[in-house]
């Protein structure tokens, strides 16, 4: 990992489009500004990790739970739709 020492208002560049700037240094944290093209998604690491973990659990749910659809339907108080169409309705 590259390590830089930066003071307040100093920045680093990643490629030619991403700038990471130290806005404020406090006792408990550092305030950082990120300027990046709209095509680059920027997230707090722990939020990304949470969503990643949740996605993995959700993917496992497909195989683990026998009749999730029926359970969801019951909880949403939705009656099953009439069985007029089958498969992919093609």
């Amino acid at each position, binding site marked *: 990992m590259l390590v830089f020492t930066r003071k307040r208002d100093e920045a680093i560049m990643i490629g030619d489009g991403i700038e990471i700037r130290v806005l404020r240094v406090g006792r408990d944290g550092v305030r950082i500004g990120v300027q990046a093209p*709209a*095509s*680059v*998604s920027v*997230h*707090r690491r722990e*939020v*990304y990790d*949470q*969503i*990643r*973990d*949740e*996605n*993995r*659990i*959700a*993917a496992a*749910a*497909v*195989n*683990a*739970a026998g009749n*999730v*659809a029926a*359970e*969801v*339907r*019951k*909880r*949403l*108080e*939705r009656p*099953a*739709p*009439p*069985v*007029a*169409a*089958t*498969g*992919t*309705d*093609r």
Partner: protein
Amino acid sequence: MTTAQMSPAASRPSRQLETPFGTFPIDDASVIDFADGLPGFEQTRKFVLLSSPELAPLHLLHYADGPAASFLAVDPRVVLPSYRTDLGAGDRLRLGATDDHQLLWLALVTMDAGQGPSVNLRAPIVVNPARMLGCQVMPHNSLYPLRHPLALPE
């Protein structure tokens, strides 16, 4: 909604996709491109959205080329009618979206042992059917939970 409605023109003959909920015919035109994959599934970028009467109101978001990844998903407004999440400029760019009204919103369903089903309202999947592009959006200021429990009716 079905794969057929989302993709009137087939560019390749239909093929069969095996899923835990049966076999579905799909073709190239029904494939949704997730350029970044999904967090945790960064390399799976081609998905199809499948529907069937047994699944309703859920849909199955399934990897187009095999069993690598599949998710149960539901329109978040079915779960929470007031649900509303704003898209950022980057999300619109990724989706090629000009008109938000045409976008399809899906919340992934989780079934955790002992807790019953819940839906991820924090990071919904958004699909632009006009361009067949999709992404999972992670709004910075969302107040919706990762696990919105589906309570049994009283």
